[in-house]
């Protein structure tokens, strides 16, 4: 066994990027093999558990025959529109909450109240108010993420060390300049992490929105496949979400490493 592998077993041992990637790949392969075995040995009938091969074939068919790319496109559009809307509103408000007691006092308990409402409970309201078009779905995603994100951003801003702010104050910076040149860069790494996590929630709520009322999108495809017990199609849809999620997450992590080289 090479020396690098031994450290994988040591308590709180060092982590190497290369080996982490390989390990991640291995666990995917293990799950895939178990799934394939379970399907091949017919533990469950194919209506319940189709083989990985069948799912991949179905996924391919979805793309070439049923225009699945369009559904993926519309889902990504919904997620990103709502996510960007949330972020653009939550970042300034969160920073203001950390900066001024009046903003914090006015918004904290209101946000906490809304934050605890389960998103599915808001589905009827968004439909009554906004119908079943794009706006009600985006509104639902926004409701699910904005209020969480505001508090996360406010916390990120509050965690900026007092010393940093005071360096600004004693070099003649005005509050605006402190926010721009100190608070924002200081909180950015943890905020980008929180944005990444919030983007993941958007996908969760998207499926709720698309399952309830939609005629397009990945959630809609999954739901209509369920109606005809096309389990392979359901799983193909789930697989697609997983792949998109994994790819986005890895992309943001990669950007994080590039942008914040100074942290290492």
């Amino acid at each position: 066994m090479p020396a690098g592998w031994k450290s994988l077993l040591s308590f709180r041992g060092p982590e190497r990027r290369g080996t982490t990637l390989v390990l991640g790949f291995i666990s995917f392969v293990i799950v895939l093999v178990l799934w394939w075995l379970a399907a091949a040995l017919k533990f469950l009938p194919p209506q319940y558990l189709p083989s990985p091969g069948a799912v991949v074939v179905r996924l391919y068919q979805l793309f070439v025959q049923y225009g699945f790319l369009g559904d993926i496109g519309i889902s990504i559009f919904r997620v990103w529109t709502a996510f960007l809307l949330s972020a653009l509103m939550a970042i300034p408000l969160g920073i203001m909450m950390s900066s001024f007691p009046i903003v914090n006092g006015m918004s904290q308990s209101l946000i906490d109240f809304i934050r605890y409402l389960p998103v599915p409970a808001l589905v009827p309201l968004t439909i009554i108010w906004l119908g079943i078009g794009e706006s009600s779905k985006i509104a639902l995603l926004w409701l699910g993420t904005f209020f969480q994100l505001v508090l996360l951003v406010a916390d990120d801003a509050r965690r900026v060390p007092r010393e940093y702010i005071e360096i600004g104050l004693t070099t003649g910076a005005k509050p605006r300049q402190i926010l721009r040149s100190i608070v924002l860069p200081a909180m950015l790494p943890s905020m980008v992490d929180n944005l990444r996590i919030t983007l993941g929630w958007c996908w969760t709520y998207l499926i709720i929105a698309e399952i309830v009322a939609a005629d397009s999108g990945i959630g809609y495809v999954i739901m209509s496949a369920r109606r005809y017990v096309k389990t392979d199609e359901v799983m193909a849809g789930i697989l697609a979400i997983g792949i998109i999620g994994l790819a986005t997450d890895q992309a943001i992590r990669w950007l994080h490493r590039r942008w914040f080289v100074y942290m290492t």
Partner: protein
Amino acid sequence: MAHFLEIEHVSKSFGLNGSGGIHVIDDISIQVEEGEVVVFLGPSGCGKSTLMRMVGGLETPTSGRIILEGKEVTGPDRQKGMVFQSYSSFPWLKVIDNVRFGLRFRSDLASAEKDRIARHYLQMVGLAEFEDYWINRISGGMRQRVAIARTFAAGPNILLMDEPFGALDAQNREFLQLQLRDLCLKERRTVIFVTHDVEEAVFLADRIFVFSARPAKILEEIAIRDLLPPTRDLKLRESETFFKLRNRILGLTRTQALRSEQIEVKGA
């Protein structure tokens, strides 16, 4: 004649509205002249940092007032520079940009002039060849030198240093004390330096104010400049005078440190 800095009958209490109010500073008056290096020496938690922060305008006295160059201190500004023990420089800026940050909000200086000043002070603290390094890649001692360079570059009337070498190892600390004393002598800037380290205080100071345990009072004022030469070197640390001074002050502070501990225990 008016003094450069006058601390007039300053007291400070925290949270007096409730029952658990803490009386931190008890009627302190101090005068500081221009170009002096003054050290506030006292046990941890005695209120010496609070007093210095009030000079910086980062805290307000409960009673009394602080007058810097004829004007009452009401808040922080560019004239009162600060060096902290931790988080003293910004990790997202390179070394040179950290030093330059001291001049960032000055619209009266051209960019080239800011560069020149930043380079000059980086040179003064001996970090010229590290200007393109990230803060997290240099040692703790170097980070403090970056912070000192930034504060000097900002050109304040008074420099306030809150145990800037407190987290460094002994060798590093000695070296930085030497460098700082040298810099102060060259720049003739007024400095207030807060520490609980007696040797550090003696080595750096023109005058030392020894603080009592909380609530802080001045136990004694020691005019080091009458006892030690202005230029200090490492040999001085082994001299008879230095040794005697150190022992005398240690004697003073030892009883205070003990009292301070007892206050902590009673308070808990």
